[in-house]
């Protein structure tokens, strides 16, 4: 298809022609031609701003930043080109400044009518213009070009004068006197959008400044050059806002903010597998250097909360490592950091570390308090109950057999045994049962169901094996089963089920391949007991159990007559049988538990002891769990079951 129609743009490709024409003009050292092209570009840029055409704007605004670096190489080789190089570089900064200062201001109509969509679109234009300026300054810094840089940064600083895009008043009002503002939500949103102009402005300077530090670090620029750059790169910011900015900028990687992740300081050949320096790293280094150099920042942990504190903890970690790097390279950095001696540097670093330590502590404390105070989430408890209950239901052979044969009856709770846990404390586990930022997933808790069912099975087998009247048949599993079945027969009972240890589902080939044994197919398994069914021997269902107690033994019985189960019921329990409850530890209960053994709860394994309040908070990050099954197994007829013992050697018992 025609490429203009494909791109839906009849002007497609014109910008390429213009760039090529500019190249030619530079090559021929022709100022007039350049001026004509420059005028054209400006006209098109202004046209696109006026008509909101981001597409065309983005194509041309980047041309300005290329003015400098395309003429730089030529000017370096050949003095003839110096003139045009200077003229075009100055033109670039002047144009960008004009566009940002006069043409990209927020329209008063949009601001007063709260046209958020239009204002946000406007921000896209503003970002592109700042990005172009950023690229311009970046190339100048990379070339160590102080003179041109001075000119450009002077132009940049003029963006502050005539502050039509300055909404600081609104910002201050929102911060200090929010009650006095009408329509607070809208004004907040408005401020979040229109403050972007100043944000971009500040962030650009931060980026360039910290990039110059990196260039000094990798010896691309010398000390004097870097100092001259840094002197010109000033920004003014409230301490806490500055910290917020740094957190924000460190986490910008995926958005490719100002293309910082592409900035590089040397040519990389294709053969090297390499990436440009990570913006997160050099931003953090720059931040630390600024802290030491300027020494004017005072951070207040109370103004930060939640996720910010977490980010600041990570920042604190990085700062510790970078601090070590600075200390070991003291001679390189000493003039830079304005420190008088190594011990001076160390003390400054310690001070900084201490400040951030406060943040870390506050982070942890805040998190814990949030968890301790949070209510339990009903849905999560229900989910836990369902999961646990399901596991219990599917994993208990004994109980399911009783359900299948229906030889069980309900009785009162005092006549049965309790299997499981009641009101057991689970420390630090409350986070699994709350909603919100601090919640975590509860994987290991799901095992409770299986544990309970294993205990029930063990209880059942215990009763069986401790019964004084036992009957043993010995031999291989096949012999054992046959002997047991015939023994039952003699007593006059028909075998209902056979229960064998789980390893025999694969171990004994003779048994498995016996013609009388028919493997159960997966399609036939539909009830709960069928989870344990492996097949039928002489039409008697064969079940397996994982219980340790069943090792090398088997049971053949007439289940319905042999055993009986009594159990307690309650409508609030899972399937009315399994009690699953989760309750939080409130302040009174925490005090109760604490009072039993105060020193235990305050002990922190070698670290400083916790205060009572902190210990109570720790307690309250736990929960109390009850998972219990109330049942009792009995043998009703000792003659209708037979125990077998599988031994290779008949003499062994």
């Amino acid at each position, binding site marked *: 298809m025609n490429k203009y129609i494909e791109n839906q743009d009849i002007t497609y490709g014109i910008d390429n022609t213009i760039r090529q*024409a500019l190249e030619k003009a530079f090559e*021929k050292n022709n100022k007039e031609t350049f001026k*004509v092209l420059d005028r054209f570009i400006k006209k098109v840029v202004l046209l696109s701003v006026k008509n909101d055409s981001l597409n065309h704007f983005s194509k041309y605004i980047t041309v300005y930043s290329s003015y400098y670096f395309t003429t730089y190489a030529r000017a370096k080789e050949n003095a003839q080109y110096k003139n045009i190089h200077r003229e075009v570089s100055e033109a670039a900064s002047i144009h960008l400044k004009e566009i940002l200062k006069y043409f990209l201001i927020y329209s008063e109509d949009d601001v007063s009518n709260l046209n958020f969509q239009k204002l946000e679109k406007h921000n896209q234009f503003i970002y592109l213009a700042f990005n172009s300026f950023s690229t311009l300054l970046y190339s100048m810094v990379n070339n160590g070009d102080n003179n041109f840089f001075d000119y450009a940064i002077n132009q940049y600083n003029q963006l502050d004068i005539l502050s039509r895009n300055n909404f600081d008043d609104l910002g201050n009002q929102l911060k200090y006197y929010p009650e006095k503002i009408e329509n607070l939500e809208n004004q907040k949103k408005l401020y979040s959008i229109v403050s972007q102009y100043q944000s971009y402005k500040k962030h650009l300077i931060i980026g360039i400044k910290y990039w110059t530090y990196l260039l000094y670090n990798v010896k691309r620029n010398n000390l004097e050059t870097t100092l001259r750059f840094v002197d010109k790169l000033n920004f003014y910011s409230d301490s806490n806002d500055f910290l917020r900015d740094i957190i924000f900028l460190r986490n910008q990687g995926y958005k490719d903010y100002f293309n910082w992740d592409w900035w590089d300081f040397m040519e990389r050949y294709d053969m090297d597998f390499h990436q440009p320096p990570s913006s997160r790293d050099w931003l953090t280094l720059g931040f630390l250097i600024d802290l030491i150099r300027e020494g004017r920042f005072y951070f207040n942990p109370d103004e930060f909360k939640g996720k910010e504190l977490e980010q600041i903890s990570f920042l604190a970690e990085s700062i510790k490592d970078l601090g070590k790097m600075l200390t070991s390279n003291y001679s390189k950095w000493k003039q830079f950091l304005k420190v008088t001696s190594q011990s001076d540097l160390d003390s400054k670093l310690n001070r900084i570390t201490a400040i951030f330590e406060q943040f870390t502590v506050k982070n942890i404390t805040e998190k814990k308090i949030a968890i301790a105070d949070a209510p339990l989430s009903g849905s999560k408890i229900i989910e836990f109950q369902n999961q646990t209950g399901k596991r219990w239901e599917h994993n208990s052979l004994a109980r399911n057999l009783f359900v299948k044969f229906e030889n069980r009856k309900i009785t009162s709770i005092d006549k049965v045994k309790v299997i499981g846990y009641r009101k057991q404390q689970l420390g630090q586990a409350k986070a699994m049962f709350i909603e919100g930022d601090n919640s975590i997933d509860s994987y290991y808790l799901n095992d409770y169901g299986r544990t309970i069912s294993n205990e029930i099975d063990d209880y059942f087998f215990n009763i069986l094996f401790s019964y004084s009247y036992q009957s043993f048949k010995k031999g291989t599993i096949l012999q054992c089963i046959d002997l047991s079945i015939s023994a039952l027969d003699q007593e006059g009972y028909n075998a209902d089920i056979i229960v064998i240890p789980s390893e025999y589902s694969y171990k004994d080939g003779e048994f498995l391949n016996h013609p009388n044994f028919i493997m159960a197919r997966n399609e036939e398994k539909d009830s709960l007991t069928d989870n344990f069914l492996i097949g039928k021997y002489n039409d008697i269902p064969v079940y397996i159990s994982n219980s340790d107690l069943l090792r090398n033994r088997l049971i053949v019985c007439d289940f319905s007559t042999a055993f009986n189960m009594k159990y307690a019921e309650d409508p609030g329990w899972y399937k009315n049988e399994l009690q699953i409850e989760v309750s939080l530890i409130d302040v009174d209960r925490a005090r109760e538990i604490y009072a039993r053994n105060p020193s235990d709860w305050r002990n922190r394994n070698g670290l400083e002891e916790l205060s009572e309040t902190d210990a109570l908070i720790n307690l309250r990050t736990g929960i109390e769990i009850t998972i219990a099954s109330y049942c009792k197994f009995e043998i009703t007829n000792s003659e209708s079951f037979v125990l077998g013992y599988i031994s290779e050697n008949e003499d062994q018992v």
Partner: protein
Amino acid sequence: MRDYNAWFRYRVVKAVKEDNSKLFDSKIAVWSSKLSYRLGHKNCWVIVVGGVFLFFTAAVIIDIPCIDILNLEFANAKIIIDQRTTNIAAIISMSLVVVGFLINNLAVKSPITYGLLFRKTYLYFTIYLTCTIIAFFMVVSLLRDSITEFIFIRAVIAASYLALSIPILIGFLFRKLILFTNEKRISNMLKDELIDEGRKKLRSILIQRHSREMYPKLFDDFAEPEFNIPIMNFLQGNIKFEPVDQMPTEKKKKLEDVNVWLLKVLLNLKKLSTEELFFARLVLEDNIEAENDIIWSNTSPNSKIFKWFLRRCIRTSKASKNIDEDAYRIEFDNKILQLAEEGRYQNLETTLDAYYELYDLQIANQK
């Protein structure tokens, strides 16, 4: 001629005109530009020869008032015809010499400007007309003794009338040709052509965009609960045709128009035989494949008659690789690079003005 609501193109153009009415010229402007294109084209000899022949035959057979008025003696007619032939030959040869000289002194010598010159001055038309008239004079003169006096006289009169137009055309030719010696006028003309080319493309873009949105909506009317038309791609169903990337460009056709009423009738017919129906996402002014199956169903394939009717619903034209489509953009691009190379910044400024107008046009109409 397809200017009513039954046709899809009419609907789309109406929708586009709501927002971008300035892009579309009035009917008179469209017709006159088409006419001047036809007459200025190098293949207009067909029209010319045909027209002249018709005029002659008309003159000889029927009573045209302008020919009836005049009376001519047979002897005079014989003299006139010889003299006219010589006159015309002389005029045309002198004119061609001057034309050749002027063309040599064109301010801008490039293939595009030559093409523009030939078109705007109707040079081809003039030359063809002159040559045809001379040819007819010669034929008539040859037949002077074989045809009746009456026919001969009438033929001569008709030919003389035609011959009158030649000096007028030549005058017009010179008038237009002189302009081409002025560089500024040439660049203005080129700019107009560029803008026209841009407008044409922009119209095409907008029509495509709107037709892409509007075509599926045609099938919304059939949204009765049991009638489900999901959008499908060509790879399902029992349609056989060659894979798209192997199809040579000559075989591809461009979709010009769709007859909506006929299509709806066929849709209703098809609905009776099957529940699930699929339609191809057609886009005006874009390539179309499988013209015989623009609606189909998986369960009941289209019969031959049905396919024939489906083919009647659409109008296509050959999707030729038109090299002339982007001629002016390419020309201007090259010109800018050349001017930058040579450092001729004044001309560069005027050329860039043309591009600025193009940007204006695009930005105003791109919504």
